[in-house]
């Protein structure tokens, strides 16, 4: 999977590394902004108030 990704990227090795870093940063941003909050709201108990 990652081997195929590496071969699919254009340019010399240093350029591929830069592209991979950018891709990883983009993936992390999407995870932190949208995916993790969604998972958190579905899995972790969030009740902090007292109520009947």
């Amino acid at each position: 999977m990652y081997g195929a990704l590496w071969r699919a990227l254009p340019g010399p090795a240093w350029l591929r590394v830069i592209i991979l870093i950018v891709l990883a940063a983009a993936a992390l941003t999407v995870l932190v902004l949208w995916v993790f909050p969604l998972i958190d709201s579905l899995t972790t108990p969030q009740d902090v108030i007292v109520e009947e």
Partner: protein
Amino acid sequence: MTEQPAPQSRSRRPRARRRFSVVSLLGELLITAGVLVLLFLGWQLWLNDIIFGASQEQAADELSELWEGELPTPEDAAVQPGTGDPVVMGAPAANEAFANLIVPRLGVDFKRPVAEGVANAVLNNASLGTGHYPSTAMPGGIGNFALSAHRTAYGGSFHNIHQLVVGDAIFVETKDGWYKYIFRSLEYVRANGVGVILPVPQQPGVEPTQRLITLTTCNPFLSSAERIIAYGVYDSWYPRDGGAPAEIAGLASAAGVR
């Protein structure tokens, strides 16, 4: 040896002969899943609290500046508590930020906005986070000023609530000034223990005479099985035009001072 066919075949073989392997794909997927779980835990237990905490404290500083802008800050360093009964504001609109909670024991820079209501719109909000139970007393009022916030995640405002020590100061800043409460005790109740936010906690129907503050959050960490409750009693108040009490002067004034 002399023919040297090696370079050609060596460069061709790895590419042409590489075959799709289900096992290696599965292995890479599993490793990726493991990394994602670790990232999620790091985000939930650490990064998210930092992100939310920072934005909530910034929102609190902006509130202070807004209130400060209405009156000039006195140069006089000798700040005296106000005399007489404290000014008590009216009930704000739902989800409106009307106060800042300042508790040095919960964190050196601990200053978080308080908004009306305890719905997720307040508690899970990056610029609010701490909610006031509607129909409970307002800051400085006779009765019980009852608040709720997350213990972990979403800023985790009350993360260190169990570390409060008898005598710790709990400050509430409003547009009118600063109200100082003194922490008295902790209590642990079940999720339906609504007696803790009564005007006189755990005594239904009793007419209040004291001015109390009550902080509620979940217990234990990352669970909502129980609630941990912190009670404080009113000590004194500092009118806005007299300046912030010395203990929190650095926190209470505009953000730039810090």
